[in-house]
């Protein structure tokens, strides 16, 4: 099916995009990779009157470390992450995610920021971004603000982006030598959205106790969910088989999935536990902790 009619505006700079967004308010939508927006428009689930195409904005296609963050611009494609040696060597959880989102062709066009702005409950980047405690940089004509991922992901397909605003980048805290993470996704086939997903990020102190934990699950509720109770239980503890089992149980409790053709509520809740346990085991292994596999 064809999308409803719309007005197309090409932005070559952030200022051009912000002016276009300011003058059209709630009628306008940003077009990034279009890998979620165009299908939604074709099914007439979205009918924006104006599309502001940000693809020509070269200054937004960046991937760099700066001031303790990995900064990913709004025009940086998933593929750039997938092939980045920096990501492969320093950001294992993001590297895990980058090869599991959609399929290889979609990843050549889709963006991380676009996925976060779309906020599909089954999206992969929201889950990873929660575990990483990412921040988003939002700009409008009246200025810039930084929003934590927890505040950014408001509800299914709803974010903190206001009319006239756009996201310019997402920032992931750079892990130190004692911090690792991992991401797991259960999918029926390549390119399918997750049946369930889990992301974990752990910091180990010199004494072998956990000093920082990020645990999140995806496709298991109205949006990606932080498993705060698992984080609390992990911090201060030493990695062990029992600890992994307890954290997994918290994930099962937090999960609030709906039944669909990917699985029943009972099955999906169980998978929340299974995937969090797998992600924890892999993360501990990456931290050099032996004997938990």
């Amino acid at each position, binding site marked *: *099916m*064809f*999308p*409803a*009619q*719309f*007005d*197309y505006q*090409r932005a070559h700079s952030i200022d051009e995009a912000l002016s276009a967004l300011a003058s059209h308010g709630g009628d306008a939508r940003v*077009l990034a990779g*279009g*890998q979620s927006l*165009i*299908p939604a*428009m*074709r099914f007439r689930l979205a009918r924006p009157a104006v*599309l502001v*195409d940000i*693809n020509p904005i070269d200054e937004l296609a960046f991937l760099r470390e700066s001031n303790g963050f990995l900064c990913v611009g709004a025009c940086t494609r998933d593929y750039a992450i997938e*092939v980045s040696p920096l990501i492969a060597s320093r950001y294992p959880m993001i590297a895990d995610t980058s*090869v599991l989102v*959609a*399929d*290889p*062709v*979609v990843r*050549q*066009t889709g963006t991380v920021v676009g996925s976060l702005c779309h906020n599909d409950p089954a999206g992969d980047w929201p889950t990873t971004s929660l575990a990483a405690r990412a921040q988003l940089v939002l700009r409008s004509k009246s200025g810039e603000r930084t929003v934590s991922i927890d505040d950014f992901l408001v509800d299914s397909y709803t974010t903190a982006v206001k009319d006239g605003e756009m996201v310019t980048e997402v920032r992931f805290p750079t892990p130190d030598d004692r911090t690792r993470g991992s991401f797991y996704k259960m999918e029926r086939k*390549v*390119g399918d959205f997750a049946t369930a997903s889990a992301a974990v990020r752990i910091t180990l102190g010199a004494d072998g106790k956990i000093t920082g934990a990020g645990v999140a699950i995806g496709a298991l509720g109205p949006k990606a969910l932080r498993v705060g109770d698992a984080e609390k239980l992990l911090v201060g503890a030493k990695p062990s088989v029992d600890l992994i089992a307890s954290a997994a149980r918290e994930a099962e409790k937090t999960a609030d999935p709906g039944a669909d053709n990917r699985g029943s509520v009972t099955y999906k809740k169980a998978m929340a536990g299974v995937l969090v346990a797998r992600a924890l085991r892999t993360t501990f292994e990456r931290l050099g902790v032996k004997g938990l596999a």
Partner: protein
Amino acid sequence: MKVNVTVNGEAYERDVEPRTLLAYFLRESLGLTGTHVGCDTSHCGCCVVLLDGDRAVKSCNMFAVQADGHAITTVEGLEQAGKLHPLQQAFWDQHGLQCGYCTPGMLMTCVAFLKHNPKPSEAEIREGISGNLCRCTGYQNIVKAVQQAAGAETAEAVAS
């Protein structure tokens, strides 16, 4: 809205509605029906074309106006001076198609894939084509064709 695009090396200017999808622009405005539309919902990969030489995109999931100022390569642009592209030849030699419906998208995906990864392993090839559905071949001969093309392209590069 005016669109200026180069398709397979030839410049075109057309007036289109912004909502015209690139796949339909290629097929209906330019008459280049080599690009197929399969699922029409961005899942099957039948409609893949190259943007600026090395990016594979599903043309049912991009607006024609977005291609303004860019170069598109479709399956019609692979053959040069009457000689099949090494991947086309390999699909022929290895029997990498049956009905042929998925083939244009499969070829374009593979051209981009080999540009990014000229010496892929079998597992990498299978992963590389995982966004392209084929209902006939079971993928076996497509994988063999990509392996042949990877070898052939390397051989040519060494020779020249």
